């Protein structure tokens, strides 16, 4: 067992974990934060997306011991206009991917604001187009196929941020 300390959604948590426990299991099973979902458990679906020091990661491929001393934000710690925008634009159907989608979108907007390029970004291209949103959000699958609503919700919020 290794003792780790993480700041999770603003409060410092201290917990003993075996080194093979994933960050996702530590959050869900030890801290009761079931917002991050276990979809594929192999980094393919993005339902487990959380923010580590503001950067989006897949919690299922992270060992909890590697995040000792870090700051983790799950959907339970989020209060963001994206949440209402997802409701307004029907950005989900069953809702299983939604917590990951919203955490991922928060990370994505921060990356874009910081100048992170994407594979569809042309030189000097700074606008967050729909094509950009789809490319930058490709790590989050929605098997209900609510992608149009998800993109609309993100574009809605991104437009307001820019304005």
């Amino acid at each position, binding site marked *: 067992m*290794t003792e780790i300390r993480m700041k999770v959604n603003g409060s410092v948590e201290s917990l003993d974990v*075996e*080194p*093979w426990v*994933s960050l996702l299991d530590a959050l869900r099973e030890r801290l009761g934060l079931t917002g991050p979902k276990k979809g594929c*458990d*192999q*980094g393919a679906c*993005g339902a487990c*997306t959380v923010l580590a020091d503001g*950067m*989006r*990661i*897949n919690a299922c*491929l*992270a*060992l909890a*011991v*590697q995040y000792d001393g870090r700051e983790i934000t799950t959907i339970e710690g989020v209060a963001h206009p994206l949440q209402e925008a997802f409701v307004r634009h029907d950005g989900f159907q069953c809702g299983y991917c939604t917590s990951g989608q919203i955490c*991922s979108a928060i*990370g*994505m907007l921060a*990356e874009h604001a910081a*100048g*992170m*390029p*994407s*594979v569809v970004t042309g030189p000097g291209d700074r606008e967050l187009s729909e094509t950009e949103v*789809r*490319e*930058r*959000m*490709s*790590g*989050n699958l929605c098997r209900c196929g609510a992608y149009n609503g998800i993109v609309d919700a993100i574009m809605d919020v991104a437009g307001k941020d820019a304005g």
Partner: protein
Amino acid sequence: MRPFAYVKPADVTAAVRAVATEPRAKFLGGGTNLVDLMREGIERPDTVVDVTGLPLDTVEELPGGGLRIGALVRNSALAADPRVLARYPLLSQALLAGASAQLRNMATVGGNLLQRTRCPYFYDAAAACNKREPGAGCDALEGFNRGSAILGVSESCIATHPSDMSVALAALDAVVEARSVRGTRRIPLTDFHRLPGDNPEIETELALDELITAVELPAAPVAARSRYRKVRDRASYAFALVSVAAALEVRDGAVTEVRLALGGVAPKPWRAREAERILLGGPATEAEFRRAAEAELAPATVRPANAFKVNLARATIVATLRELTTGGEDG
């Protein structure tokens, strides 16, 4: 997941010492591949040496205009580095074409080089795979092999190397720096990965106790005009069917310098030296691009399901080189 001991050394000396006496130890970087393989029972280390606390996460200038990239630089950070974007745009494009944003935020440069194949039979414990279990056979040979390699394959293994980043590094003459208790050595990227031959379980020149500490990029003015083009089954977040990393300099209609490497077609990042040889000094025309691509792909060993990769690779090579010649003339 099978239990293991976990250590997190604070410096490189301690890290290489930790594996020197422990043959069943593995270095852990971002975890995006190793954690998955451990969960699947394919990787079974007794000890995991977490190297993410080591001070190897910076990109530094080399004399003469090259860059030294620490092994722990995250894929997303490297892709966004202004020096990479200006001097080696194909490397940034390759990184951004790989995986998803979440994975790029986790994955390290050293770990990316050591990614293991995504051949479905390698992942399937019920299937025969010489890479996973030497001597077991290869179910991919007569199985689902649409994504399998066509160059550099053997009867033991036709799995592809999955990395996009490594294809760009192969084109850039990158050098891998590795450290062990015996010292430091430098391995050219194009020699770093091995072809399968009769031992597909051995994938790189790296010894079990060696840690990748850096990747060095020599200055390459030609790379300021370069492109990484990836063809895949869906628009984003998929492994390459074929990819092309290319840099090209044309003067007075003739090719004065060229770099060409292929992904998705071989068990290692494939530097297309035969095509480069044909192109260098010749006219920068589509006919020549096609002739060079055909020569590179002539030794291809195909199976019915992946024979399409020959045409796809040829067309992608031609399209990438054409794009580099029509995007504006140098000099």
